[in-house]
């Protein structure tokens, strides 16, 4: 069966360090992968999209890698700040009837300590 796995344990790091979150998947052949941020009581907010033919993508302090051989994406936040504390969700597409249907992982909570 198809699975998207994100670490259910919260990641605790010190301010200024690099946070690395992992998204692993099985039985998918996604054309792209997305990362979202969700704060308590709010809807997810889009951060980055990376396509299957891209190895890496960057946006300011964020970096995403996509390894279709390992079936894994890594999401990095460099020089982390307490304001980066949130839950981070990865999303993959699955195909259905010729369309791409987004499927989300359950997310990993990041806590950045001052």
């Amino acid at each position, binding site marked *: 069966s198809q699975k998207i796995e994100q670490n259910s344990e919260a990641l605790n790091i010190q301010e200024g360090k690099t946070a690395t979150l992992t998204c692993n998947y099985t039985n998918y052949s996604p*054309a*792209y992968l*997305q990362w979202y941020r969700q704060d308590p009581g*709010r*809807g*997810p*907010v*889009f951060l980055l*999209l990376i396509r299957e033919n891209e190895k890496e993508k960057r946006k300011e302090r964020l970096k995403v890698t996509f390894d279709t051989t390992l079936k894994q994406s890594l999401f990095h936040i460099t020089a982390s700040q307490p304001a980066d504390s949130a839950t981070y*969700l990865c999303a993959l*597409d699955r195909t*259905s*009837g*010729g*369309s*791409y*249907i*987004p*499927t*989300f*992982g*359950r*997310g990993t909570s990041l806590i950045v300590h001052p």
Partner: protein
Amino acid sequence: DARVTQTPRDKVTEMGQEVTMRCQPILGHNTVFWYRQTMMQGLELLAYFRNRAPLDDSGMPKDRFSAEMPDATLATLKIQPSEPRDSAVYFCASGLVGGGRAVGEQFFGPGTRLTVL
């Protein structure tokens, strides 16, 4: 600043009652999604519309849930009759899909927190 709006923001109801949630997608977007989020299951896709036509509702319990888009500015999700296990946060999202039919960035609304007693 274009946003997805959802009403109501909070809803408390009793088991067996009908619940209707509404969503106004961002003007110009051609896709609308309904999701349900719980601690146990995470974010689950319930329904997906493109150009107002339903594309996928395989994640939606058909016996009690229904989703419609009566026009381009309104999407509705209805539960009848509601049950305590329906308690969750329901999110609507909208986006643009191009010719490749790949879903890009989704813009989420603030959600409706539903409690069924």
